[in-house]
């Protein structure tokens, strides 16, 4: 009981921070009438951009997961020279400004680059195209997947993998039957984080592809051309869509674990 005033102080500060997060979100909903939201949701441009944002982010997440999950496994299990450097490199996209990341990605995928040339040989355009958006989204969101998956693999007792090898399983079978299922919960939450981070990306995406317009770019365009009242309903709809996906995927990953 001696600490009560101090505890009150802690609760007060915590409450302020929570309010700081919830306040603007509640504010945007209060300031937007259901009519506006309904009418905006029927706007084909809005619908198209939300659809595009979701599927491109989903595709980017899944495509890059193929390489990221093995990388995470290696990082969790193997020690090698310069491992700390590699870990630092993986976190780079989180710390650099996303517009700068966009510039970097643009140089990497532009029509003059090797990747751009390679892409155009098979008819795949990056700049101003979904493929470019996916690369930009993946660039800024991939650390979330790699780090979550690495934590997951690290938490799998090495002993279980050794036991499986001792029982005659090949390293590949050990990975698919032991390590991957046991790390699955972390991997799924990494996938969700990567997907959510990718679809909310603005800075890197707008530099690589203004068109076709993902929703964060559309919100910005409505704001700069028509003002706050036109941007707000789109923002509300996108927040709702994000929340729905976020909650649904969380629930999905939980039931997977319990099953």
């Amino acid at each position, binding site marked *: 009981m001696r600490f009560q005033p101090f505890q009150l102080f802690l609760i007060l500060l915590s409450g302020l921070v929570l309010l700081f997060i919830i306040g603007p979100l509640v504010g945007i909903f209060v300031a937007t009438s259901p009519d506006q939201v309904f009418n905006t949701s029927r706007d084909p441009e809005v619908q198209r951009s939300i659809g595009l944002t979701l599927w491109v982010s989903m595709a980017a997440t899944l495509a890059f997961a193929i390489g990221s999950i093995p990388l995470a496994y290696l990082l969790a299990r193997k020690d090698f020279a310069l491992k700390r450097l590699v870990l630092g490199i993986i976190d780079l996209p989180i710390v650099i400004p996303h517009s700068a990341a966009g510039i970097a990605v643009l140089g990497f995928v532009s029509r003059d680059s090797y990747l751009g040339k390679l892409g155009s040989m098979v008819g795949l355009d990056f700049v101003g195209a979904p493929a470019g958006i996916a690369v930009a989204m993946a660039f800024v969101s991939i650390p979330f997947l790699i780090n979550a998956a690495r934590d997951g693999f690290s938490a799998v007792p090495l002993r279980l993998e050794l036991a499986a090898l*001792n*029982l005659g*399983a090949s390293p590949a079978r050990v990975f698919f039957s032991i390590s991957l299922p046991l790390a699955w919960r972390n991997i799924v939450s990494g996938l969700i984080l990567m997907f959510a981070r990718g679809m909310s990306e603005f800075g890197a995406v707008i530099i690589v592809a203004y068109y076709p317009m993902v929703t964060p770019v559309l919100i910005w365009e409505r704001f700069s051309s028509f003002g706050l009242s036109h941007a707000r309903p789109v923002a509300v709809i996108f927040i709702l869509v994000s929340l729905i996906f976020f909650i649904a995927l969380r629930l999905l990953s939980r039931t997977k674990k319990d099953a």
Partner: protein
Amino acid sequence: MLELKNIIKTYPEFKLDDISFRVDDGDHFIILGPSGAGKTQILEILAGLVDPDEGNVIVDGKDITGCKIQSRPFGIVFQDYAIFPHMSVRENISYPVRFKGSGSKQVLSMVAEQAEAMEIGHLLDRMPKTLSGGELQRVALARTLIREPKYLLLDEPLASLDVSLRQGLRSLLKEINDKGQTIIHVTHDYEEALVLANRVAVINQGRMVQIGSADEVFHNPGSEFVARFTGVKNYFAARLYREQDRQYGELANGRVLRLNTDEPEGKGFVILRGEDIFISLENLPTSATNQMKGQILEISPSPFGFEVLIDTGTRFYARITRESLQNLALRPGKEVWISFTSKA
């Protein structure tokens, strides 16, 4: 036949130094030593989980030192069992034989058979987190044995079981060994070694101290460490039986001792610690269940005082303090009475 030749492995805190031994097919080979002696590390080197710095592991004349874990003829049961938590008992046991070309019907019958032998047939559909330690251990044994490893490696299999379960597992291990399964088994418990092993290697601080038949090691400890560690010189093969709710053990020479034990009837051992034998000059009434007269053959200094060898027709080693030795004025040739309560 398995041979370890001059294995050396340096760890941050200690070193396995020049470990060599041989295990014949059908042996129950026990590596006995205090915790931290390097016993588990030897098993890890055998199974290939860890590579030695120097030395060779040779199986039937073939050097397998650098071989992959999954192609070695060792099945290891870890001390913590390493049961896969996301698989049912059935899936755990079938893990080594699934995908091995066996049809699923055949796999199921192999699993059923193995589970039956381990007495866990009723647990097949359970998940590991609902099982007790003893049950998990049997799952681990079944999962390892289903692959029919040439050598079964056991890491302290009895240590984490409570007393009531130990007896059951001991008989199970005996049964497995009797069927011809070679077992290499590490423990810090000399009783386990006495009862189960046909050959014993004593290890201390990363070095082999003595290797031999259980009999040799326990009756002729080659060093003070072994004597102190093995601790028991009075141990006798015996036929255990019950009469009117009392247990008896008949020794090889026909002498019958009253016992205090839950061991089943049949072949067994009588184990008696030197400290538990009391020496008196007359036949005193005591609560001990065995009393007999004998003659002192030998008195020798021991780590805890003196060791007195008394011949009563059967030879017993009693451990006594210097004080008792002087009070009773014991000397070789003197006739004394000994009394003890013994267990099997």
